[in-house]
C-alpha cells in the first residue's frame, strides 16, 4: 500500500570547519575520498536512494559551511530536516566543545515541532589520523555527552578510509524516520506514508 511510495528524508550535517562534513557525505554517497575538497561555501546537498524496512527513500544529505559566521543561513537550509548529524574531529577538542553550540543553533533555526525528541546522531571523525595518536577526545567523553543529550547515537568514523560511514548513515536513516508521524514534513509526498512500522529508536545504533 502506501509503503511503496518514495519518500524524502532530509538530513543536515553540522560541525566545525574542517571536521570532514563534505568528506563524510561524499564517502557515503559516492564511495570516494579526496583530499582536494574546497571549503564549503553556503550549502549543498547530495541525494542517495536507500532502502529501509522494505521501503525506498531518497536521502537528501545537506552539507553546510562550518564557520560559525555563516550560521544565520541555517534558517533556510535546516527547515524540514528529519535528522541532524553532528560531526566533530576526534583530534580537535575545540570541535567537540562546539557541539553544544551546533545542536542548540540547529534547534533554534530549524525549530522542529518536538525539539526534545528531535533525532541527532553524533560522528567522531578522522579516527584514522596518525594511527589514533593525535586523538584528544576519548570515546568515553563523547559517549558521556551523547548520554547527557538524551542518548544520541554515536559512531567513530573515518571518511578517508570509509570506516563506519555506511553503518552511521543506516542509523541516520532509521533515526530520521523515528519521529515521522509527528514531524511537520517538508515534502508533500512524505506525508501519511508511515504507519506503525517505524524504527526502534536509537538504542540499536550504538
Amino acid at each position, binding site marked *: 500500500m502506501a509503503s511503496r511510495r518514495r519518500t524524502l528524508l532530509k538530513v543536515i550535517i553540522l560541525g566545525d*570547519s*574542517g571536521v570532514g562534513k563534505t568528506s563524510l557525505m561524499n564517502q557515503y554517497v559516492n564511495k570516494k575520498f579526496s583530499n*582536494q*575538497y*574546497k*571549503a564549503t*561555501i*553556503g*550549502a*549543498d*546537498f547530495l541525494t542517495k536512494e536507500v532502502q529501509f524496512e522494505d521501503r525506498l527513500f531518497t536521502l*537528501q544529505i545537506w552539507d553546510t*559551511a*562550518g*564557520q*560559525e*559566521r*555563516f550560521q*544565520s*543561513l541555517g*534558517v*533556510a*537550509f535546516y527547515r524540514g530536516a528529519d535528522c541532524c548529524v553532528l560531526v566533530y574531529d576526534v583530534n580537535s577538542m*575545540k570541535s567537540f566543545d562546539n557541539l553544544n553550540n551546533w545542536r542548540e543553533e540547529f534547534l533554534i533555526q530549524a525549530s522542529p515541532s518536538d525539539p526534545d525528541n528531535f533525532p541527532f546522531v553524533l560522528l567522531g571523525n578522522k579516527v584514522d589520523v596518525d594511527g589514533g595518536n593525535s586523538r584528544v577526545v576519548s570515546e568515553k567523553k563523547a559517549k558521556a555527552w551523547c548520554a547527557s543529550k538524551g542518548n544520541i547515537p554515536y559512531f567513530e568514523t573515518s571518511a578517508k578510509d570509509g570506516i563506519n560511514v555506511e553503518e552511521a548513515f543506516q542509523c541516520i536513516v532509521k533515526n530520521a524516520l523515528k519521529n515521522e508521524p509527528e514531524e511537520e514534513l517538508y515534502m508533500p509526498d512524505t506525508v501519511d506514508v508511515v504507519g506503525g512500522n517505524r524504527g526502534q529508536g536509537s538504542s540499536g545504533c550504538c
Partner: protein
Amino acid sequence: FSLCCRSDDDPNVFLVNDFEDPLQKSLSSLELPGVATVANAMSRQNSFSFTGSVSEVRHGDDAKYGGPSTMSEYVSKQRRKSNDPGRDISFQVLEKFSLVTKFARETTSSLFRENHSSGSHAYGRQKQEYVLDNKASDKYADQLITPDDASLPSDSVESDELLLVWGKKRGNPLSVEEWRAFLDPEGRIMDSKALRKKIFYGGVDHVLRKEVWKFLLSYHEYDSTQAEREYLAAMKREEYEAIKSQWKSISTTQAKRFTKFRERKGLIDKDVVRTDRSVPYYEGDDNPNVIVLRDILVTYSFYNFDLGYCQGMSDFLAPILYVMEDESEAFWCFASLMERLGGNFNRDQNGMHAQLLGLSKLVELLDPSLHNYFRQNDCLNYFFCFRWVLIQFKREFSFDQIMLLWEVLWTHYFSEHFHLYLCVGILKRYRLRIIGEGMDFDTLLKFINELSGQINIDRAIQDAEALCTIAGEAGADCIPPGTPPSMPIETDGGLYLQEDDVL
C-alpha cells in the same frame, strides 16, 4: 500602446514603434551577418516560447542548459543614456510585454513541452524589434550584437535552448601597447574611465595584470606617478613586515594563552590547503605559495582584527597572490579589496543580506514573473545565490576565467554592483527551466550549484551589461547605500560588529 505594423521585408514579422525614421529604415535593410543568423535561426525554430526569445547559438558546449529569456525586458537594450527619450518608449513597451509575460507564466509549463507550437503575434513583433534594434545599434558602434557563428545545437537534449544575446561583443584584452598609451611620461593614467571601459569589454592581458590590478583594486591611485608608486610600494612593504612580525613573534607559550589567535590561525591553516590546489601555482605538498597564502591571511587578521578571517577570503586571495607574485603587494591589494567586500564576511552577514536583497529587487524590476515565481515558492531570500555573491563567482568559473571576470567587475564601469546583474542575467537564462520544472528552494539551490563550470562567461557579462543598461537608475535604486562592494558607511561603533564568543 506601441505602434505595430507588418514588415515589408518579411511578412512574418511585425514592427514595433517603426517610426519611419529614414536612418533606421535604411539600417534595417542592411544585411548584417550576425543579425541574419539570428533571424534565420528564429524562422527555423518557429515559435518556442511565449516569452519571446531570440534563438541564440551556443559557444561550444560550455552552457549546459538554457532557456529563453524574456524578450520584453530587453527592448530598450541599445539605449545606454538614461536621458534618451527612446528609453521611455521602451519602458512603455516593456510594460505591455509584462502582460504577455504574465500570461506566459500561466502557460509556461505546457509551452515548455510544446516547443514547436505555432508562433504568436506577440512573439513576432518582439522578434522584429530585436532585429531592428540590433541593426540600428551597429551605427552607434558602441553596442554590437554578437554575431554568433556557431550552428544551432542539432540533436542535443537542449533543443529548447534558445537564448537571447546582445550587448557589446567582448573585445580583446588590454595589450601592452594599449596600456602604454594610457600612461603619461610620469606614469599617470590619463583617462581612467577609458581604461576601465577597455578592461570592462576585454579584460587585461595576463602579463599586465600585476600592474593593472593594483589600480583596479585601488592600491594605486590612477593619477599617481610611477615614482610615487614605487615610493608607496617601499613604504607599504615595511608596513606589511611590521604587521606580520606582530604575530610571527608570538611564542608557543604566548599562543597557549591566546585562544583567538590559535583558532584563527587554525582555521586559516585548514583553508589554505584546500584553496585552488589544482592550480599549478598552489599544487603539491609543502608548496611555499600555500605558506605565503597563509601568512597573508594571518597578517590580515591582525591588520583588520575586527573582521578577522572568514571562509571565502582565501578564495579571493589566491588569484591575487598568483598575479602579484609578491607577498606585500598581494597583501595590500587584498586589503584594498576587503575595504569594499569586508561586509561579505562580517559576523552579522549584513553585507550579504544587503546584496541578496538588492538582487531580489533587481529581479523584481527586470523579470517580474520570475520574481513572482520565487515569491510563490518561498525563494525570496536568494540564498541559492549565496556562493555566487560571497566570493563573486569564484567557484563557478575556472581560475583563468575568474581573473577575467573579476577585473571586469573591478572596473565598476557600468555599476559597482555589476555582479548582481550577472546573477540576474544567469537566472534569466535559466528561467524557463526553473519555472517549467517547478523548482522548489532545494532543487533550485542544487541546480545553481551544479551550474558551476557550465556558465558561458562572455555571454553572462553581455547579458549583465544589457540588464544594467535597461535597469538604469531604477536598478541603482534597488541597491541600498553601502552595499558591498560600495564603500561601507562608517559608524562610531566601527565597521565590523563584534561578538566576543564568535571567532
